[in-house]
């Protein structure tokens, strides 16, 4: 038990938290942008999975991790756009369309992996590359903080930067104002001449790209290969985290960190205490359910308070 505490309060543990938080935070930000425009992007899970595989394949093909990332992002943007097409043009229910994309991604990635590598499980036979880790100048020399922040994967820095960028996008730019208006009252937006569908297309595309970052991180940073079903529900956790964070980028950061801690904790406990592996694996998802329950309860209270005014 003592050793577990020692691990949790070590800088290495927090280094790990940031690493684990990265894909969840990407997913959460992706959920935030989409839901702010009024589209519930349940396809995040599938988009991440597709991007994870695309990144692996193209990084091997071009022998460049960067080109792998680029194609992963393009694939994510396209799938986001495709969701927009299904929902906005063909008037499909967003949930059903999202589920369809997720199922397609789950089966499709295995199929593609098999064609290319002859393996249905992992891409270890593909010579894919990994995005670099990055020492932060100056900060790396500060004790503790240096250990936590420095030498993270480049995408971990990107995701922290994305929090700020998405915050500015939503609250400081005309596009963000339009996204928020469209999501909250599309009639009002339309009545002042805003092209509602155009804004929503832009938002789901951004959402797809953000999710793709998360997917690429999983197969080109977190691990160095693709394995089937490797997103393990992170897209859904992102949706939950978005709801709990009140659909704001700052909220997304805080809630994602919470999930990241739960996830890392799982890893630590696994090594420290004799608990069945499967139970430990449940930890992030239990955190999600408990978190959502607390969130919706407090929201209910809030609404009751507002109503009684």
């Amino acid at each position, binding site marked *: 038990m003592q050793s577990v505490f020692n691990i949790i309060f070590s800088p290495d543990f927090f280094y790990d938290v940031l690493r684990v938080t990265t894909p969840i935070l990407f997913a959460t930000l992706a959920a935030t942008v989409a839901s702010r425009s009024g589209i519930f992007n349940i396809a995040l899970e599938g988009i991440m999975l597709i991007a994870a595989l695309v990144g692996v394949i193209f990084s091997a093909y071009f022998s460049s991790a960067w080109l792998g990332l680029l194609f992963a992002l393009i694939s994510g943007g396209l799938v986001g756009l495709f969701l927009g097409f299904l929902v906005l043009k063909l008037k499909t229910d967003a949930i059903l369309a999202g589920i369809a994309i997720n199922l397609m991604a789950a089966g499709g990635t295995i199929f593609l992996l098999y064609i290319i590598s002859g393996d249905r499980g992992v891409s270890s036979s593909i010579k894919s590359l990994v995005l670099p880790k990055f020492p932060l100048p100056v900060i790396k020399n500060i004790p503790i903080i240096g250990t936590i922040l420095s030498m993270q994967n480049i995408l971990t820095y990107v995701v922290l930067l994305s929090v700020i960028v998405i915050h500015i996008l939503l609250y400081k730019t*005309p596009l963000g*104002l*339009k996204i928020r*208006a469209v999501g*909250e*009252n599309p009639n*009002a*937006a339309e009545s*002042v001449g805003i092209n509602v569908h155009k804004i929503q297309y832009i938002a789901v595309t951004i959402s797809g790209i953000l999710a793709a970052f998360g997917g690429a991180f999983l197969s080109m940073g977190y691990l160095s290969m693709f394995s089937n079903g490797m997103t393990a529900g992170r897209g859904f956790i992102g949706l939950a985290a978005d709801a709990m964070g009140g659909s704001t980028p700052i909220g997304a950061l805080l809630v994602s960190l919470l999930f990241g801690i739960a996830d890392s904790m799982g890893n630590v406990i696994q090594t420290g205490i004799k608990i069945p592996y499967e139970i430990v694996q449940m930890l992030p998802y239990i955190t999600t359910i408990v978190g959502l329950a607390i969130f919706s309860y407090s929201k209910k209270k809030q609404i009751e308070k507002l*109503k009684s005014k």
Partner: protein
Amino acid sequence: MSDIILEMKDILKIYPNGIVANEHINLSLKKGEIHALLGENGAGKSTLMKVLFGIEIPEEGEIILKGKRVYIKSPHEAIANGIGMVHQHFMLVPSLTAAENIILGVEPRKFGLFTNMEKAIEVADNIAKMYNFDIDVRAKVETLPVGIKQKVEILKALYRGAEILILDEPTAVLTPQETEELFIQLNKLKEKGHTIIFISHKLDEIKLICDRLTIMRNGKNKGTYKTEDVTTEEISRLMVGRDVFLEFDKEKANPKKTVLKVRDVSVKNKLGNLKVNNISFDIREGEILGIAGVEGNGQNELVDILTGLNENYTGNVLIFNKEAKELGIKGIRDLKVSHIPEDRMTYGCAKDMDILQNVFSNQYGDEKYSSKYLLKSKAMETRAEELIDEFLIKCNSFKQSVGMLSGGNIQKVVVAREFSVGPKIIVANQPTRGIDVGAAEFIRKKIIEFRDQGCAVLLVSADLNEVFELSDRLAVMYKGEFSGVFTNVEELTEEELGKYMLGLKKDEKLEGIIYE
């Protein structure tokens, strides 16, 4: 004719369902006038304005703006042509500030990429000051009262350069004070050369503020007049095509035994404020008890108690000597208590369901229309058709969804359902609000008919004419209490009633509210 700013010529609009909403309508507006557009619900006013604002595209006809033919195919093009519209349901984004709502879609920028919020607040503030609108443009819209929200809507249109402003029933949501303020501002807008189209049912308001008026009926233009040239009676005749009886010749009530007893009822809202304070009254068979009062003085809370919607009250409500709390909503309805709710779209009907389903929503259990497991659709269809005939519901068939009907006809569907069970007690909350004169008159007549058959009626209404016309006894509610009771309604004057409504006078004894 240089002062004509806009002409709509020969507008023909047929909806996909075959309803001819506008039948070759002509309308011309002079620059700087306030022009009323009035007509019954379903007369085609809204459609005509939707055509002007580019929401609907007409089959035929042309729009001539300042002597030039224009084609308006979207709200965006209407705005570009200097036409603004203030919708009845506000087109605002609640979580944004007033300034953000005003500049939405035409945001000032800085560095090409970012919203220049300082500039936005400045321009919003400037335009508010220019038109003497006293609002805080930094406030979030969701925190603003209705009257201010409407001002934000008007400013939104003005900021986009609207010269012609369409106001769709702007006073329906306002308090009398807010209405007064709105009128002052509309007159100022007029002085600055703006042209205003004012859609309304309220003849007194039109008389007060409009220069000219156009009357529509059944999709046709029944004529444009200078306001001072027509009397209220003429207008209402043109609107409904017959003389509306402003006075009912109802017979004197012949009340029998007491069926509804309310004793010492109080209720608090969720904030703990006393909304109904120790109220007691009786209603007997064959009489109408009217409850007058400025809205929000506890009338809705009282109705919720009587109909079983709220059980968290103190005191006793006895319906045919049975405690209402023990009965529950179903039990109360089983005793033939009918309820015409104030908000017909939320509590009165299911708008996406058809007329038949709505009419039977309180009678599915009746063995006339249902065997043990299956509904008897033939019997229901026959009955629905009977009700459509009896209540003069204007529709294509009972299969039409209620949401497609006009407000007056929706209310008739609600009334048909509530009255078709053969009610012994009717609780009617604002039964004719916001509906056309013809439908309102019809519903009032029905209420009297049921009274004459021995039904007890509680009528809550903000329409003074209505409570005067219908009530056999009249109580005034003020701050959750009865401030006055009148058993001789004919002798009561409006001025006198007003004093009780505003709390200037209070009757402590309340004689005649209880029968012992």
